[in-house]
């Protein structure tokens, strides 16, 4: 029996405490496992000097790669633009967008401009996963500088 040894074996092991401990450990790991889903991160940086830019700064020609994202509520569909070029939704569109980011960043690099940012300019209703998808493409193409555009926030 679990309680101890019989008459023929007076020295027994009480396993009750062991079972208690095992159940306690089970409980602990069951509780903690739920929060183990976070496993990745992407670094991004916010502007250190906040505040509006002066008009002189605004008029400077900017080197940037801009990806525009918007969400059509009526058609429940994403819309994407690379600079001014529409990008279709789906795997083919994803491949095309990644190719364009690669080509554009390579052309800037060939001019010695290695830190040209990709600006993800998303509308307020765009799902976060779509923004992260573009960030992921940038990471895949070794674009180090990813910035967020200033679309209008959800009211």
């Amino acid at each position, binding site marked *: 029996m679990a309680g101890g040894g019989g008459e023929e074996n007076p020295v027994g092991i009480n396993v009750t405490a062991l079972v208690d401990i095992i159940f306690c450990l089970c409980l602990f790991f069951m509780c903690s496992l739920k929060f183990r*889903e976070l496993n990745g*991160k992407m670094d991004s940086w916010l502007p250190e000097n906040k505040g509006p830019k002066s008009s002189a700064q605004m008029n400077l020609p900017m080197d940037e790669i801009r990806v525009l994202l918007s969400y059509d509520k009526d058609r*429940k569909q994403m819309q994407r633009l690379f600079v001014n070029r529409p990008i279709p939704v789906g795997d083919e569109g994803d491949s095309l967008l990644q190719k364009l980011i690669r080509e554009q960043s390579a052309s800037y690099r060939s001019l010695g401009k290695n830190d040209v940012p990709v600006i993800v300019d998303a509308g307020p*209703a*765009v799902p*976060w996963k779509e923004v*992260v998808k573009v960030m992921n493409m940038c990471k895949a193409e070794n674009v180090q500088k990813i910035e967020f555009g200033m679309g209008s926030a959800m009211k």
Partner: protein
Amino acid sequence: MGFKEIKVQEEVAANLVPMIDIMFLLLLFFMLNADMSQRDLEDIKPPTANKADQDKPEENSNRITVNVHHSAPDCAQYAMASDICIDSKHWFISVQGNRYALTEAELAALQKRLSALADANRVKPGDKTSKSERFVLIRGDHLAPYGLIQRSLERIAGAGLYKTQVAVEIEKSSLAK
């Protein structure tokens, strides 16, 4: 008159089993309690990515976590992922277990809280206007509208924090490689 001494053979032994039980229950309690104090992660589904860096929380023990999460169990749009839920009453921003609604007053309270957390690592200690070197992890739900994330970013920047990280779930296929 002589008394006969009665010898009672008695075994004196301490039963340690209840003590061990209690000790382990106490240990469990403190382990969970200690974990709970750092549990500032809301239950969300982060977006997936295959090019993200492996997150090591122990390297960023000083990090602030900002959660952008949905909290409306009866919201069909979110549950079925048929459309993007843009009802601002359904979304919250949470920091260290404190939940903030998307009202101006609550967001101001959020910025105040973030500013207090940023104070620990200001470039110029004591100067609230100087920037902070503390990292901020943005844990946005994969279906969170970008407008919400942007509002969080505005408050993070307003508190003087600029080192941000975006939480993602690394795709299993990329982990296998």
